[in-house]
């Protein structure tokens, strides 16, 4: 159901969200900003698909949410990585690296 922009490879949003939360808890906008910033302005998360993805991850128990106050002094929902989430991130990262290595090899071949 998640609709992602073509500049985001299908199925990678979950992994990127987990990565963005690796060190600090963040709220939704913060996660989008973080991905944008980490990719050096290449990746744009379509904001409409961000929240469904967050809830999906929460349902899986990879992240958990709690209410906090944002830097602009607003009540915001902060997400942080759980232990299971950390494991999932490692797994997804490995998987991704393996796949891209393969794809790169294919593309590099003549």
């Amino acid at each position, binding site marked *: *159901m*998640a609709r992602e922009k073509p500049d985001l490879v299908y199925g990678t949003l979950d992994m990127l969200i987990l990565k963005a939360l690796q060190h600090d808890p963040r*709220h*939704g*906008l913060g996660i989008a900003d973080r991905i944008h910033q980490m990719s050096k302005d290449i990746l744009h998360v*379509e*904001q*409409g*698909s961000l*929240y*469904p*993805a*967050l*809830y*999906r991850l*929460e*349902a*899986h*128990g990879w992240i958990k949410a709690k209410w906090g106050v*944002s830097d*602009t002094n*607003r*009540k*915001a*929902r902060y997400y942080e990585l759980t232990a299971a989430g950390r494991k999932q991130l490692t797994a997804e990262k490995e998987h991704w690296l393996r796949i891209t290595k393969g794809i790169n090899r294919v593309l590099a071949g003549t």
Partner: protein
Amino acid sequence: MKTIRAACWRLLGVFRKKRCDAELAAEIQHHLDSLTERKIAAGMSASEARNTTLREFGGVEQCKELAREERVWMWPDQLRQDLRFGLRMLRRSRAFSALAILCLTLGIGTTAAVFSWIEGILFHPYPAVAHEERMFVLAGTTRGASGFNQLSYPDCIDFQKNSTLIESFIVDQLIATTLSIGDRAERAIGGLVTPNYFEALGVRPSLGRGFTPEEGVGRNAHPVAVISYETWKNRYQSDPEIIGKTQYLNGVRHTIIGVTPENFHGTFVGVSFQFWVPISTQETFDPTGYKLEDRNARAFESFVFLKPGVTPRQAQEELSSLARRLENDYPETNRGHGVELLPLWRSPFNVAAEMLPTLEIAFAVVLFVLLIACANVSTLLLVRSLIRQPEMTARLALGAGRGRLFQQLLTEGLILSACATAGGILVAHWCRNALVLAFPAQAPGIIVNLPGQIDWRVLAVSAGVCVLATLLFALAPAIQASKIDLAGAINSGSSGVLGGRGRSRLRSAFVLIQMSLSFVLIVGAGLLMQSLQRIEGVSPGFSTEGVLLSGVDLLSAGYNAERAKAFQDQLLERVRALPGVEAATLARVIPFGLRDFSSSPITVEGYQAGADEHPTGDYNQVGPDYFSVMGIPIVAGREFARTDDENRPLVAVVDETMVAKYWPGKHPIGRRFQMKDNWLEVVGVAKASHYRTKLETPKPFFYVPLRQNFTVQGGVLIRTRQGTASMTSALAREVHALDPNLAPVAAITMHEHVDRGTYTQRLAVTLLGIFGGLALLLAAIGLYAVMSYAVSQSTRELALRMALGARVSDLLGLVLARGLLLIAGGLILGAAAAFALTRLLANQLYQVSSHDPVAFGSAFIVMVIVALFACLLPARRATRIDPAGALRA
């Protein structure tokens, strides 16, 4: 694990829905506000910033919906929504809903009803029995002969003694006798059973006890009886002190020792037992003699209960080897005889066997009706989905997913079929005893019991049919509806593009299905009808016109042979003297009746029997003038005279089949054969006739004078031009004059009597006729719906043509052309399907080809006429369009 966790989380979400929704809204609001602020800080105006943010974010509500789906387990919630909405929609278009539910009820109800009959008669005939799943019929087989026979009692005992895989073994024989309570005597049907009968079946008498092992032995030593709940209730007014009272069965005093529970009707599908007596009393009830020690007397039905875990195959192997041992030990009687273990529904000895083909046909037919009903409702839904298109378009435009739309439409379908299934089970409940109505009126005293059984299996099948039907009829329309081209639909306004091409093809396809399926049913009905006519056209070999039959139950009145002879002589004298009576006679068995003929081994003088051959003959004990009353020609010799009595040499009249078998090419008159230690001289040859059914294969048959083989039981045959009513009252007068305590059985014509034999065929024709008619009606409704929709959709086009000068006949032709195309297609498909399918009916058809041109032709004509009507009505409406009004609209 992961999925379980996620599912639990979502399930939790269902209960926290309100809070979750609020949190989600707050969270997204925060996101939007922060973005907007950021843009204002970057120099945008407030409103510009808000608009840009919203644009960037995409559909807020859609996002929320998607997030909700991730978070909450949606379907219980959605299902509730869909159900509520669906019910509202169905309430709004009541006519549509009623029609759809009616069609489906017809389809599902008939399926449930027929399945409940199959359940009650074939698969689950003895609901009161404890381990029905381990209960099997043990039938005898004869090498080189097809079909099954019953078993002899000594063989049964040997099987029981020597088998290791069988838990219990019961023997039972259906007996018809006279039950006298006080001064009231009635015929009654009961079971002659082994003493372990109730115990093995797991049926505990609700009062008193069952039989003890001692009661099964000792010739006639234990005149005890267990009575049925109905007998107890109706004949004894539920007397709580019944145990120990006595009643007369066949003139012998029996002590009542038990009453069975209400739901137990015995072990003969089709007939309710009224009493049970131990097997040791066999002689009391059988005029043909003591049979418990005779291995040739194969007259007992047996059931076995396998031990838990034993497969029928293992048991069969053991029983076969036991049967082989019996062949060795008793070659005289047992050579060539085996046994076969049969599931209950294949029992060859009761009504189930007769009903099986009819039930098979009925089941196939109701599946057809179900399919037709589904196709019909599909057509209705398709037409309606066009009317609902604006609604669907609006919902899609407002952000409903296509999946949700699809789900909604399927839910609506489910509501329809759930209502129909509830109605259908009600229909099945009402029809559970319908088969009894089709059963021919039987001799008095027989309680016909052919119950449909509505148990969990029937309910499960109905639920399955409900879901299946929903998928069948709602799937295609739902897929179609969820495929709406949004942009096209909105742009073209409310009255265009409604009948897309694909959709109209789908509608036509459904109409074609209905037409062709109903064609098959009508052809089938036609074939069976012709077959029935052929069977009824077959002469039974005796006259059915001008012969009445009746009888007086002398046995229950306590007549012994001497009194009975005197009574019968006087009665015949009096009857012969009645005005309009040409002749009258007696017979122990009336052909085509329920009571069977006597059968006996015979030894024919001068005939060398083969090694494995045991010549037997069926015979009937008849009075003088029997052949002239029955209209059976005597082809050689003479018929019985009044002088053929106890004091004269024993004689017999044989039929042509017997002559052909034992004296081929010879003159049989004066030859002799032996039956039960007596030598009989052949004095006449009767033309072969049918004895039990019209479809039987000819077997040797002979007649002996009643006086020389007397039994008290018997029927009266009268050749007369009088009607049954006047003859019944005249008979009653004469009987009353002879013995005021007696009354004759109401007279019926021989024609009526013989027709009872074809009731299964008639039942099949009736069912197929009714269902074929219903199917045709449904198909006509479908065709009508499609045609009138087509007309209402092309109002503008038709109006335009009219305005441009088309004549009424042109328009009529235009509309009819489409209808005719559908009709032609349906008929071609139907004819092809019928051609392939009617072959399955072939073994039910008597002297009718399964491709009989008359049946096909008449089905063709019926279909064309009905279909033309269904098209003509909408076509006529097309010609009444007001062009000016329609074009301006």
